[in-house]
């Protein structure tokens, strides 16, 4: 079932996307690789969209998933004549064979990751955990946690779909992230072929898929790598806009932008960027196109904002709490809104204004501050290396650029970049991954023009690509090491998890215990593998349990745990996320002293800074498992 589920979901995505292209009267317009790439990207989004509604009405079941996905997959068959696949042998040059070989190596490394178990912290905390939680509930539930709970979850809906199809097997999920992680590369290749020769497009595909940020995020289920598909959908629409007076391109732009917004809050910035570009390049039809695109965006991308508004009154929970002058409620209040404001300001100010506005690409490439999360998981050196050639190419084409088909696309990503710098809040470099394929294509297209004018630039441009690919392939090797070890160990599940998830032995011990109803966790990566229900108590992003340092009272802490039905606590010692005066750390100590908590187990485990590079540092960390003892607790009686 693990292999069948991602295959069926791939066919469903292709079928759903082809149906959309047919409806937009665009199915017969483009090359096969474009149609396949676009169909998958559109269908991927449509599956995510459909599973929101299935969950909203409480229809999360394997039967419903098989029914919906089966229908979408079957729809591919009547449309198959639109995909005229040719099996004639293709002649590759020596360089192309080398690139193909390297692509195969990168694919194989990612496939090994797909055969292993999920181990990336963000994915274990919510990308993969939330779908699992929704499946257990049989419906979509509102997760009242800011930043990683009550957020647009379109992509996670596709993870939910594959888990339903695959009997909740981990392999179905990881194989799906493998497939969907490479789809942006295919679409990048397809789009770039309009401007670039085949070997350039192959090199760009390889470069993009092996960027350290992609290796880190694509297979592990992060959102940003897949968002690149939605940006490319919009790019196709903007390019098509010039020669196609029908609504097809406008609808394509609306769907792509809507899917982005349904996947991440920064999609709202992308809507603004895509919208402005559409309006500017729509000519006298700007009003008509604007309305059609806007309505499409609302239909495709509005559901998660409506979901948040329905539960909290705030469509961008919790960002608009103060602006909308909302009343204090169960999930949020003015005090928490102030805390969040301070948190976001702190994150925003992690890099100085001049680095942000004047030197972000240089800093992110050469001397990234910690907040950018670049370096080992960054974009590599290619973007800076290629700058002089791009400038030369732009200069050589300065009279033609404004009328270029790429111009509206370039304008869109430039606007997004500026908006993101201004309002993106967290300056993590990987948040720019979605626009990276377009950046690469634009840089390559103008560099090619530079070569046409100054042929001797061919060698340094080739050198830039060769050195960048060499770095990336080296990173592929390091990245694949734990997965190779897993395969050669005979797929020893427990050993792999122990070696790759900090503190996993504590989870393994907990899972062996009986009578655990719900566990309070202070380390988010534990959520996916803890068998019982769990609650992650991070300070300042959720109100149900007060965890902000300086405000945690033992009695309130106890009562809030009881309301949530917590029966056990699994925490590190000291509790890293909330320690100091009046913190979760002190509350646990006080409750233990008052007899409310019984100590079940102390577990000492190893702790590593990096999964991939063990040399970056390691140590030991203590974990405690506590049992809530209501009978012995004076606070329980006082309520």
């Amino acid at each position: 079932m693990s292999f069948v589920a991602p295959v069926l979901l791939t066919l469903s995505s292709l079928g759903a996307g082809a149906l959309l292209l047919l409806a937009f009267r665009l199915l017969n317009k483009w090359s096969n690789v474009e149609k396949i790439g676009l169909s998958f990207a559109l269908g991927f989004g449509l599956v995510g969209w459909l599973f929101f509604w299935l969950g909203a009405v409480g229809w999360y079941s394997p039967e419903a998933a098989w029914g919906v996905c089966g229908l979408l997959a079957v729809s591919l068959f009547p449309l198959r004549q639109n995909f005229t696949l040719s099996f004639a042998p293709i002649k590759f040059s020596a360089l192309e064979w080398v690139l193909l070989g390297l692509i195969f190596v990168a694919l194989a490394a990612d496939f090994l990751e797909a055969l292993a178990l999920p181990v990336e912290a963000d994915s274990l905390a919510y990308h993969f955990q939330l779908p699992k939680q929704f499946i257990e509930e049989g419906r979509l539930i509102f997760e009242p946690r800011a930043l990683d709970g009550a957020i647009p979850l379109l992509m996670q809906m596709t993870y939910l779909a594959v888990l339903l199809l695959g009997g909740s097997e981990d392999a179905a999920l990881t194989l799906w992230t493998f497939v969907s992680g490479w789809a942006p590369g295919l679409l990048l290749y397809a789009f770039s072929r309009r401007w670039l020769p085949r070997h350039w497009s192959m090199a760009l595909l390889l470069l993009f898929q092996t960027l350290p940020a992609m290796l880190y995020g694509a297979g592990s289920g992060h959102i940003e790598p897949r968002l690149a598909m939605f940006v490319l959908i919009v790019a196709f629409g903007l390019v098509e806009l010039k020669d196609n007076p029908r609504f097809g391109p406008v609808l394509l732009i609306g769907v792509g932008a809507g899917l982005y917004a349904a996947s991440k809050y920064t999609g709202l910035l992308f809507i603004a960027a895509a919208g402005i570009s559409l309006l500017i390049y729509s000519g006298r039809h700007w009003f008509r196109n604007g309305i059609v695109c806007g309505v499409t965006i609302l239909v495709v991308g509005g559901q998660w904002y409506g979901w948040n508004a329905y539960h909290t009154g705030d469509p961008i929970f919790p960002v608009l709490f103060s602006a909308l002058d909302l009343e204090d409620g169960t999930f949020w209040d003015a005090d928490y809104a102030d805390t969040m404001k301070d948190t976001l300001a702190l994150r925003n100010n992690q890099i100085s204004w001049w680095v942000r506005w004047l030197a972000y690409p240089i800093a992110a490439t050469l001397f990234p501050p910690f907040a950018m999360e670049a370096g080992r998981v960054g974009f590599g050196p290619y973007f800076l290396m290629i700058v002089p050639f791009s400038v030369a190419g732009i200069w050589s084409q300065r009279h033609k650029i404004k009328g270029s088909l790429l111009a509206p696309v370039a304008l869109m990503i430039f606007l997004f970049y500026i908006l993101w710098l201004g309002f993106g809040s967290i300056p993590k470099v990987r948040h720019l991954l979605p626009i990276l394929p377009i950046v690469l294509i634009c840089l390559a297209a103008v560099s090619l023009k530079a070569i046409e004018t100054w042929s001797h630039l061919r060698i340094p441009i080739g050198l830039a690509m060769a050195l960048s690919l060499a770095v990336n392939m080296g990173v592929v090797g390091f990245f694949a090491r734990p997965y190779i070890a897993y395969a050669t160990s005979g797929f020893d599940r427990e050993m792999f998890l122990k070696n790759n998830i900090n503190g996993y032995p504590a989870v393994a011990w907990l899972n062996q215990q009986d009578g655990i109803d719900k566990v309070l966790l202070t380390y988010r990566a534990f959520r996916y593998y803890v068998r019982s229900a769990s609650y992650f108590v991070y300070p300042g992003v959720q109100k149900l349990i007060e965890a902000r340092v300086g405000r945690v009272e033992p009695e309130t802490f106890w009562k809030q745990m009881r309301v949530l039905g917590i029966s056990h606590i699994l925490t590190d010692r000291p509790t890293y996320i909330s320690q100091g005066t009046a913190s979760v750390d002190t509350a646990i100590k006080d409750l233990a002293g008052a007899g409310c908590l019984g100590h079940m187990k102390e577990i000492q485990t190893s702790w590593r800074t990096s999964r991939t590079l063990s040399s970056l540092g390691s140590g030991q960390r203590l974990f405690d498992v506590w049992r809530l003892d209501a009978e012995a607790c004076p606070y329980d009686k006082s309520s």
Partner: protein
Amino acid sequence: MIRPVSINPAMIATSIWVLTIFGLYMLQFKPIILSLLRQAIS
């Protein structure tokens, strides 16, 4: 067949640019590379 390459000042200057960026980029990984080398030697 290997084509002869004519040396050109722009080619040299841009090649130096590419190599400089590459060197500066790799510099941030010096601690990692040194530690890996140490591991490999020991």
